[in-house]
């Protein structure tokens, strides 16, 4: 671990100003990913700006009916919040299935969507890695690739995005709110995470920017959502495969659908091919199977993770069955 300086910001403007005094500083929220990466020398900030005193932890329903989750809300508090549980059960389930109780008490929602991959080569500074050291190569390709991506990867990087919550937030058409030295902006959460054209950049966050909140409008679709996770052990483990689904079934027909996949893709994965198969049809086991087949047709397995294709299909079918109530 390299030495670094520290400051506790009491205002957002103060946080921007202090970060600007550093050469390559970092904001500290829950710290569960940042401190870990600093210990591994994967992250080497010269200054850490503690933002935990900023008033960004509220979870509230706005007058416009939007559910707004402050970026400093902790995973545990977000999962337990009645408004989150009723507005999007799949989001609460994704949080409950993440990490451990201790880590959920610490980790913030903003930090969750910014967390780095757990690819073993990214975390090992003795190994080439295009995400950690651009241009050095990808050690996972041809290496221990069992946990790597089968969707959205390229020959620069086959790492998997580790977040469950980010996958579930694809169900609700979330908006991400950011503020930085240049002002504030809001953007669709879908598209916040990048594909590996430049693996060193996981997201479209700009230098100095803070995530202030994630928001969405609850709907019949988001209220009928679910998240399931398949992993090497029953708890406290990242997904081999996860499926997030939301269906609006009215009059025996799927009016709208959102499907996300985790553990299999370079970024939180919106399964648009599956959604296209589902929408406009009556729910059935055959339809769910066809949707899963359609999405995984694009999968490119590595040597040791072909099993993820079938596992992802089965997870998606099971999750759809949970919310689809097919005859």
């Amino acid at each position, binding site marked *: 671990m390299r*030495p670094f*300086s*520290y400051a506790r910001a009491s205002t957002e403007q103060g946080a921007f100003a202090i970060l600007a005094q550093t050469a390559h500083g970092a904001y500290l929220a829950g710290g*569960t990913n940042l401190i870990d990466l600093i210990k591994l020398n994967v992250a080497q900030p010269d200054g*850490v700006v503690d933002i935990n005193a900023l008033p960004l932890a509220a979870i509230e329903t706005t007058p416009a009916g939007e559910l707004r989750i402050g970026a400093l809300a*902790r995973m545990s508090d977000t999962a337990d919040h009645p408004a989150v549980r009723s507005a999007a059960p799949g989001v609460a389930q994704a949080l409950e299935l993440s990490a451990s*109780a*201790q880590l959920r*008490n610490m980790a913030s929602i903003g930090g969750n969507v910014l967390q780095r991959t757990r690819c073993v080569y990214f975390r090992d500074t003795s190994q080439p890695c295009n995400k950690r050291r651009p241009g050095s190569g990808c050690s996972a390709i041809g290496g221990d690739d069992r946990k790597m991506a089968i969707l959205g990867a390229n020959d620069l990087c086959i790492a998997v995005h580790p977040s469950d919550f980010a996958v579930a937030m694809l169900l609700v058409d979330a908006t991400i709110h950011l503020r930085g030295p240049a002002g504030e902006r809001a953007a669709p959460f879908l598209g916040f995470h990048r594909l590996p054209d430049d693996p060193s950049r996981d997201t479209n966050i700009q230098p100095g920017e803070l995530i202030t909140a994630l928001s969405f409008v609850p709907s019949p679709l988001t209220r009928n959502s679910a998240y399931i996770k398949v992993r090497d052990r029953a708890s406290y483990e990242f997904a081999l495969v996860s499926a997030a689904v939301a269906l609006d079934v009215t009059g025996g027909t799927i009016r709208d659908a959102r499907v996300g996949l985790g553990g299999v893709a370079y970024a939180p994965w919106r399964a648009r091919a599956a959604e296209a198969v589902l929408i406009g049809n009556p729910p059935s086991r055959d339809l769910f199977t066809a949707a899963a087949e359609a999405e995984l047709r694009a999968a490119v397995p590595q040597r040791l993770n072909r099993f993820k294709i079938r596992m992802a299909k089965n997870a998606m079918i099971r999750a759809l069955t949970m919310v689809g109530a097919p005859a």
Partner: protein
Amino acid sequence: MGLTAPAAVEAQTPPALVGPAPVDVKLQVNGRTFPLKIEPRVTLLDALRERLGLTGSKKGCDQGQCGACTVLVDGRRVNACLTLAIATAGKAVTTVEGLARGGRLHTVQQAFIDNDAFQCGYCTPGQICSAVGLIAEGRARSDAQIRESMSGNICRCGAYTNIVKAVNAAARA
């Protein structure tokens, strides 16, 4: 939302960047205030063990993967290995050493003894702090819920069966 925190102490707010050389930090641990001079990079776990001599909290993995370092910060269980000591200034830290009252073991400590909930004992302080947090969160409603909610504490001896019994007993004491 969340748990009731013990009375928070006035934060020692640094107005600007301090360090990386050692800086003055006041930690409140087990009801006492300890003035320390530490680098900002020092974790809460290292401050507890190496500076305050509170070696109950254990360094297992030092990566947030084993739970041996679990302590309570403002009443919530966290991994001390992933917490900067300086960031806990102004918060109330409770370690396994601070659970007993007036010479009497905490209910959870006594339940671990009564139910033979450990073998080597290395993970036990973390298990106990985690269980105290779990019970305060109201997550001891069933064996399944206890198992899930204690999954952040690994026991290489495999004492899980009796750990669940102990947590159950303490929650109902």
